[in-house]
């Protein structure tokens, strides 16, 4: 009876996952969708614990509850406390935990299998073959996902900012991967206990080496990919136990995550293979800024005056704004300009920053009114009637080369057409290139003035100038 009830609960949980994920794809229902998935998860977990049939000693129950309570407390507080800008790191970390969980399950099950029937392991019977395949796959994929996520975490964290690349790293990685496959096969054929630890070590190594050469800026894509890896690892767990809720959850995330990775890559106009094996995650040496024409500087006071006497100012935020943590300062700038009767809007490029929706999250954190954030297609026609465009720490997303230069790596990416405004003021710290590592001709436009300096300090000084006007 309990067993049957559990089956039904798993069915319900699976349906909730699907519906929740579906709703998460629509801005209006997204939050509810997340809660629905969460409800499905609670159902699945509670069912698994309370509808278990067979003798279980109290100590096991105590351990399970201890683990869940501890995990809940840590997970909840971390998630609640973290700064919005650190979210990719956090997602990466949680993803790693899931991978580790899958790997641990495989380890334990392998031991069970081995202790249960050590002789049979010498020549695994076909009956155990399926189990063994699931265990090995879960171990490998889970470990890769775990190790990769941790490296991604440190990269986003800044600890490992510079991508470290061994010479011919792609070949080295390929060799490690080959080793993983060989050892897996060997393990499958021999069932040796020692080998599984070798396999574990190799998989972890591969996870590390896989993410190491990729530039920190590409981490969102990598995390999305590792996310779908963990999904697949969970699905193998499902195969192992014939557990349908693990299967639906795992496969769903596996396929949805893979598609999401591809969609993300498309949005920033980079093929996924280039991200993984790829050339330009490391920024090419700073683009040469000779001979492109002259760059015009502008002082803070002049900028403040110009803005103060404008009718309409559009702010284009970019990655630099996030790095400088200048979201509160820019909100202040907006408020004071509005007090002075200037119309202010934000133009949000879909891939500005380093994760999708980065700018929305960032500005929402600083309490910027949602209505002020305009999407690319809506705001582009407004630039010709704009007095001042203020580009803060953005670069690629306003690079006209995307429209004019077919040889440019970002050619074809839709951009914010800042060049159509009457005045363009660009704040960044130097003439250095942005994420794509390419020069930006907008800087040399006669209508453009450069306002060098860290975004936060520059904007703060701008605000205090404006206050005196």
């Amino acid at each position, binding site marked *: 009876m309990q067993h049957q009830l559990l089956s039904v609960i798993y069915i319900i949980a699976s349906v909730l996952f699907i519906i929740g994920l579906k709703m998460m794809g629509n801005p209006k229902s997204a939050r509810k969708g997340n809660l629905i998935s969460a409800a499905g998860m609670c159902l699945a977990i509670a069912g698994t614990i309370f509808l278990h049939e067979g003798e279980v000693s109290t100590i096991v129950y105590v351990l399970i509850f201890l683990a869940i309570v501890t995990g809940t407390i840590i997970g909840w507080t971390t998630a609640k406390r973290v700064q919005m800008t650190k979210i990719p790191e956090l997602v990466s*970390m949680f993803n790693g935990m899931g991978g580790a969980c899958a790997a641990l399950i495989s380890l334990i099950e392998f031991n069970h299998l081995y202790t249960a029937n050590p002789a049979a392991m010498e020549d695994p019977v076909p009956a155990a073959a399926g189990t063994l395949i699931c265990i090995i796959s879960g171990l490998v994929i889970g470990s890769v996902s775990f190790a990769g996520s941790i490296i991604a975490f440190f990269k986003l964290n800044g600890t490992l900012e510079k991508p470290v690349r061994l010479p011919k790293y792609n070949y080295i990685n390929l060799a490690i991967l080959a080793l993983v496959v060989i050892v897996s096969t060997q393990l499958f054929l021999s069932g040796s206990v020692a080998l599984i630890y070798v396999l574990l070590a190799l998989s972890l190594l591969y996870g590390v080496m896989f993410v190491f050469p990729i530039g920190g800026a590409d981490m969102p894509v990598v995390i999305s990919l590792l996310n779908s890896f963990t999904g697949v690892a969970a699905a193998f767990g499902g195969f192992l136990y014939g557990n349908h809720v693990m299967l639906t959850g795992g496969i769903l995330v596996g396929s949805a995550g893979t598609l999401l990775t591809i969609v993300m890559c498309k949005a920033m106009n980079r093929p996924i293979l280039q991200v993984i094996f790829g050339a330009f995650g490391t920024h090419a040496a700073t683009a040469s800024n000779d001979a492109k024409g002259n760059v015009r500087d502008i002082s803070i006071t002049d900028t403040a005056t110009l803005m103060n006497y404008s009718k309409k100012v559009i702010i284009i935020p970019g990655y630099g704004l996030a790095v400088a943590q200048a979201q509160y300062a820019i909100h202040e700038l907006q408020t004071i300009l509005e007090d002075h009767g200037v119309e202010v809007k934000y133009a949000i490029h879909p891939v500005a920053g380093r994760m999708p929706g980065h700018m929305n999250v960032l500005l929402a954190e600083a309490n910027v009114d949602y209505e002020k954030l305009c999407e690319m297609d809506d705001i582009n026609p407004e630039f010709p009637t704009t007095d001042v465009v203020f580009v803060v720490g953005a670069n690629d997303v306003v690079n006209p080369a995307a429209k004019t230069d077919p040889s440019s790596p970002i050619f074809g990416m839709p951009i914010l057409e800042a060049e159509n405004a009457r005045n363009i003021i660009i704040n960044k710290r130097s003439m250095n290139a942005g994420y794509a590592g390419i020069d930006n001709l907008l800087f040399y436009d006669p209508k453009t003035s450069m306002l060098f300096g860290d975004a936060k300090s520059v904007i703060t000084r701008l605000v205090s100038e404006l206050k005196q006007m």
Partner: protein
Amino acid sequence: MELIKNFLTLLSENEQMIYFVILSIFVGIEVIGGVPTVLHTPLMSGANAIHGVVIVGAIFVMLNTSQDDYISLVLGFFAVLLGTLNVVGGFVVTDRMLEMFKKK
């Protein structure tokens, strides 16, 4: 020939499972179709929480581990702990993110 035959047998023996996998993959793909860019991050994070369902496996392992199999118990404890982190952290952080978007 023998190989193909074995392969076919494998496939047809697991027919139900194969349909299940294929259909789930289609559902996963279709469900994501046409998400606006702004939602990519929350969606990634939400999906991340869902694969935390692996915790069900971890709990299952523990429930089937005998009281004196210390290694398994310890490993299982950590598996459940990590799984919980994945689940709880994932859903909470997604909710926070989506809350930000909602704000008018």
